[in-house]
């Protein structure tokens, strides 16, 4: 608890290596850590696998990483708002794994919660069921969906204390809290860093124990 997890931007770069899988918070770019995305671009990280809700737009959220060719694969629920994703997919330059949004959330949560998978009715009778185990419970058919984890999770929060307790703002919360559970290294970009003890324990949305590094967002 007493550890100060704030690091400088220059300390973060070396944590990103070519070929890593990266979970990113955000929904249409809202709740995505723009500074960490820029850093991945600036230092030319290659062959990334991105896991998150959507690829936003070409210049929003993780869009620029895709436009600039840093990404080899995305695991997302939606690409329709970013025509570049679609073009690269069709050109064979980008592997796209589409996952229903609720299933994506549960798979990430499983990966972070030590669960081996979850039974969901979503996707039964559709192309989503291809290659998956099914189970019948009480006469109803479910797909067995497996856990997802990543090497690194990049999160965006409104406020952190120095120990790493996080508070998100409005709908910018979305996938951030569950991704904090599901990656080997968790880095949060935050708008404000306060002293330990300044956030009421009842209001913490991601506990410090899950967060490895915090970095202060650059003013834009």
């Amino acid at each position, binding site marked *: 608890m007493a550890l100060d997890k704030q690091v400088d931007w220059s300390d973060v770069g070396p944590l990103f290596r070519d070929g890593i899988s990266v979970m990113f918070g955000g*929904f*249409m*770019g*809202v*709740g995505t850590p*723009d500074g960490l995305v820029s850093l991945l671009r600036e230092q030319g990280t290659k062959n990334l696998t991105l896991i998150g*809700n*959507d690829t*936003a*737009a070409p*210049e*929003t*959220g993780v869009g620029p990483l895709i436009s600039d060719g840093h990404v080899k694969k995305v695991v*997302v*629920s*939606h*690409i*329709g*708002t970013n025509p570049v994703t*679609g073009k690269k*997919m069709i050109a064979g330059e980008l592997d*796209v794994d*589409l996952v*229903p*949004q*609720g*299933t*994506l*959330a*549960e798979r*990430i*949560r499983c990966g972070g919660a030590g669960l081996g998978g979850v039974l*969901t*009715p*979503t*996707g*039964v*009778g*559709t*192309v*989503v069921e291809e290659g998956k185990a099914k189970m019948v419970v009480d006469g109803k058919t479910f797909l067995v969906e497996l856990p997802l984890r990543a090497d690194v999770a990049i999160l965006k929060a*409104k406020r952190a204390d120095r120990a790493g307790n996080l508070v*998100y*703002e*409005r*709908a*910018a*919360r*979305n*996938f*951030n*809290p*569950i991704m904090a559970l599901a990656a080997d290294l968790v880095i949060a970009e935050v*708008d404000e860093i306060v002293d330990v003890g300044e956030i009421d324990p009842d209001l913490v*949305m991601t506990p410090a124990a899950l967060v490895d590094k915090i970095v202060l967002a650059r003013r*834009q």
Partner: protein
Amino acid sequence: MKLPPRSRCSLPPEGAQASLGRPGARPEAKEVIARRVAQEFQDGYVVNLGIGLPTLVPRYLPAGMHITLQSENGFLGLAPLEGEPLPGVVNAGGQPCGLMPGAAMFDSAMSFALIRGGHVDVTVLGGLQVDEEGNLANWMVPGKMVPGMGGAMDLVTGARKVIVAMEHCTKEGEPRILDRCTLPLTAKGRVAMVITELAVFRITHGEFVLIEHAPGATVNDVRAKTKARFAVSDELKTMNLG
């Protein structure tokens, strides 16, 4: 938090499927459909609306009826934007919106626990095709459009009642209500109602039943534009759009 330049996102998540194939839509058709869908809502309902036509429905609710809109990106209590955009207050299309008093925010796992767990009373979505088994296709056209399913599969699977609100035919005049969907499904056997500018169908116990038609239309008019077998309700009515 500075808001990203979201106005450049022309198609919000569910927009792609909801608006596909309907560029030439006459405004009257949309209004007719939205007005009729509004009659299905009840006071206190929790509702998730797909992007496009479904978002028009609330403006036709009777005065004094309160519903709560669920937004799949993580909250209950979506409201129209009033005044300046607030940080993080965006709808599922990433567009700035408002919050009703009594709104509640949560993460994506909780959002879909609500959706999948039957805590959303009604979802209204656009459709590309619906068939007589209550199957819906609205998320991709192979070789043409692969936007991804976003939250649509979970919504159609989990909402208590699924209403498909769409124009009766494609802009080329092809029926969208079929004996069997030819496009990849969003969910199997989950559609409870199909509301178009021409007709209202209810699907119960696997039976597709015409319960209303547009003023001035006949059952034969409906048959001519519908490629699914359907029964005609004993209580067949004319759509009341007043």
